[in-house]
């Protein structure tokens, strides 16, 4: 079963609920109709605020465009959702060498694994990849990234546990220039966004990178676990304020979470979802397509409406 089918499957019950609410609505859109929609959106972790806003916009669409059938209303909702998710995509080209990607996020979301997958993807596209182990804090973190580097035949730069992460970043910048690397990906330690000292450490890493190469980092990816609830909004706000996020990676979408937080994130920050993680293997990284995601999330209404 592919990932979108699984998402669809997970929401089957919700769709049935919506359908029965719609059938009771006898052509008009009453509170039951909107309540059922709100249930579905909130259960997908889209969040109360974004859901309420979506429904308000749907109401005005329905009134403004004279929508009369539930099916048309449902389609309008999908268009709204996909619109919120469709933020301009980042360039996949990287003329300046090295193209530096900094990967950040709270603890355990899947940063290191995502880096392994990205290295695999760039490697397969014929790029020379280097991984830099700027997580010197977590037990076993350097070893973990090293194994990913071996697996994907990427170059690897590290220092001993407990070293200054900014100094690792500096070494990696120097080494990637010296060795003609195309893509340098830097791993960082997981950090909760309310820890000032750790966030300061992150700005220091960025400062050191910039001093070395003013246009870098070319991408700052914030990795967000799809099982996360509303706290992801705080994460995005703080990380973005401090180092400027250029893209989200939503991981663990192979579970039963709907990852609706992606909608709230894109809508609130105007930052695109760059990639999604759908498993623990090197190939389990996909591009994000808003339309098919929304399709999987809401699916088609069951026929009996």
């Amino acid at each position, binding site marked *: 079963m592919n990932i979108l089918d699984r998402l669809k499957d997970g929401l089957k019950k919700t769709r049935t609920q919506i359908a029965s609410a719609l059938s009771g609505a006898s052509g008009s859109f009453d509170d039951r109709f909107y309540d059922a929609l709100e249930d579905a959106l*909130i259960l997908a972790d889209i969040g109360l605020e974004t859901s309420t806003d979506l429904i308000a916009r749907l109401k005005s669409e329905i009134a403004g465009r004279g929508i009369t059938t539930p099916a048309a209303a449902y389609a309008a909702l999908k268009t709204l959702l996909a619109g919120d998710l469709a933020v301009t995509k980042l360039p996949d080209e990287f003329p300046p060498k090295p193209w530096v990607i900094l990967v950040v996020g709270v603890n355990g979301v899947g940063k290191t694994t995502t880096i392994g997958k990205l290295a695999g993807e760039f490697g397969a596209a014929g790029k020379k990849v280097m991984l830099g182990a700027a997580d010197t804090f977590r037990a076993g973190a350097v070893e973990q990234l090293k194994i990913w580097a071996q697996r994907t035949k990427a170059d690897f730069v590290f220092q001993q546990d407990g070293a200054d992460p900014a100094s690792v970043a500096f070494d990696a910048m120097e080494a990637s220039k010296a060795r003609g690397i195309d893509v340098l990906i830097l791993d960082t330690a997981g950090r*909760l*966004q*309310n*820890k000032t000292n750790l966030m300061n450490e992150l700005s220091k890493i960025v400062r050191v990178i910039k001093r070395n190469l003013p246009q870098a980092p070319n991408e700052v990816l914030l990795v967000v676990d799809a099982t996360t*609830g509303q706290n992801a909004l*705080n994460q995005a706000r703080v990380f973005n304020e401090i180092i400027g996020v250029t893209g989200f990676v939503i991981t663990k979408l192979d*579970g039963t979470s709907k990852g609706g937080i992606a909608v709230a994130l894109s809508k609130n920050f105007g930052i695109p979802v760059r990639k999604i993680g759908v498993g623990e293997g090197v190939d389990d990284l996909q591009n994000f397509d808003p339309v098919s995601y929304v399709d999987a999330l809401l699916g088609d209404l069951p026929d009996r409406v």
Partner: protein
Amino acid sequence: MFEELTNRFESIFKKIRGQGKISEENIAEAMRDVKRALLEADVNYKVVKKFTADVSAKALGADILSSITPGQQFVKVVYDELAALMGGNARAIRFHTNRLNIVVLAGLQGSGKTTTCAKLALHFRKQGHRPLLIACDTHRVAAIDQLDTLGKSLEIPVFSDRAKSPLEICREGLAFAQREGFSLAVIDTAGRLHIDADMMAELKALCAAAKPDETFFVADAMAGQDAVNVAKEFHKEIKLSGVILTKMDGDSRGGAALSILDVIGVPLQFIGVGEKPDGLELFYPERMASRILGMGDIVSLVEKAQENFDLEESKKLEKKFRKSTFSLQDFLEQLRQIKKMGPLSDLLAMIPGVGSQLSGADVDEKALSRIEAMICSMTAEERDRPGIIDGNRRRRISLGSGTTVQDINKLLKQFDSMKSMMKRMNKIGSRRGQNAALKSMFPY
């Protein structure tokens, strides 16, 4: 949030009191705000509906209107109910003293199992146990290295075997523990999705072989709506005995705790409050209830303060508070005490209403050092009687401390308002007074 809630309820109920009777609609109106608070805290939608329905019934029966502060009374009904739910089935963990005790940790990927294994081993070693860590995660990249490193740093032995299956490692590890006379074996397992049939079967077989005394579900405090489905499946397969909620040192409201409790009904035992092995605390239902409602964790804050404040010092200061002879020198000592308590942002996060709004960026740790520098550049007399610090003195102090005159002005003004706050506080009871005093010390 909490104050906001209370205020809204006050106005709702004051309005009603005019009518002399409370109706279901009135409760429903107030309940909408409760619902919103719970959803924002990531409590599962269905659990929210059930909870608000139950509490509505209770609130209708409770004598809310005759209270002088019906809003507070209403919040209390909600809070009590929530706290009671959170503490449902609470129990203390009791290990055997005459044989090996076995603990298994399981959960989704990245929830914090491996870290928590080390934390538990350390926690129980402090209580006199001899723990062994068993590394049964052969799946995740470098999982064994991670546990090895943690074990080494704590001088707690780790049993592992890179050539064997999790089930074999578990069996052999337990046999080793028996032979060597360990009193506790903590088993780390790989993270897995509840819908991964093979991995769930592996876990089930491992638990069947280990016959654990405790089977803990390790869940991330940031989890959203789906936490209920995950917990339900794990419980179905391996019959959990307790829940550990990790990453509670963050600013998430942790509503998943309520959802999990509601669907599987096993008690929450511990919370993880840091990445280091000593970041483990017992779970307290009241604190969790206030956190979910957005009331902040004032109890933890006060405890932390008590842990770190020198008691004698505090008594002396309290006296000064009372007599309003609190000087800038005392303030300086106070600041140094606070610095000892850890990063300011961690403390601020525990204060009601501050936690969620405050991004790390807003807390300037350096501000503390700046204040320290300013006070250090004052003479003893100036510290005692800030009133004498005129324009000339301000310039001198600013030069000496590398700050601006504006900074000095601000400090003196803040100090002034702090003193007047203390005067007011003295009229309030001492415990509440202490809380307020603590809060007043974070003016920057």
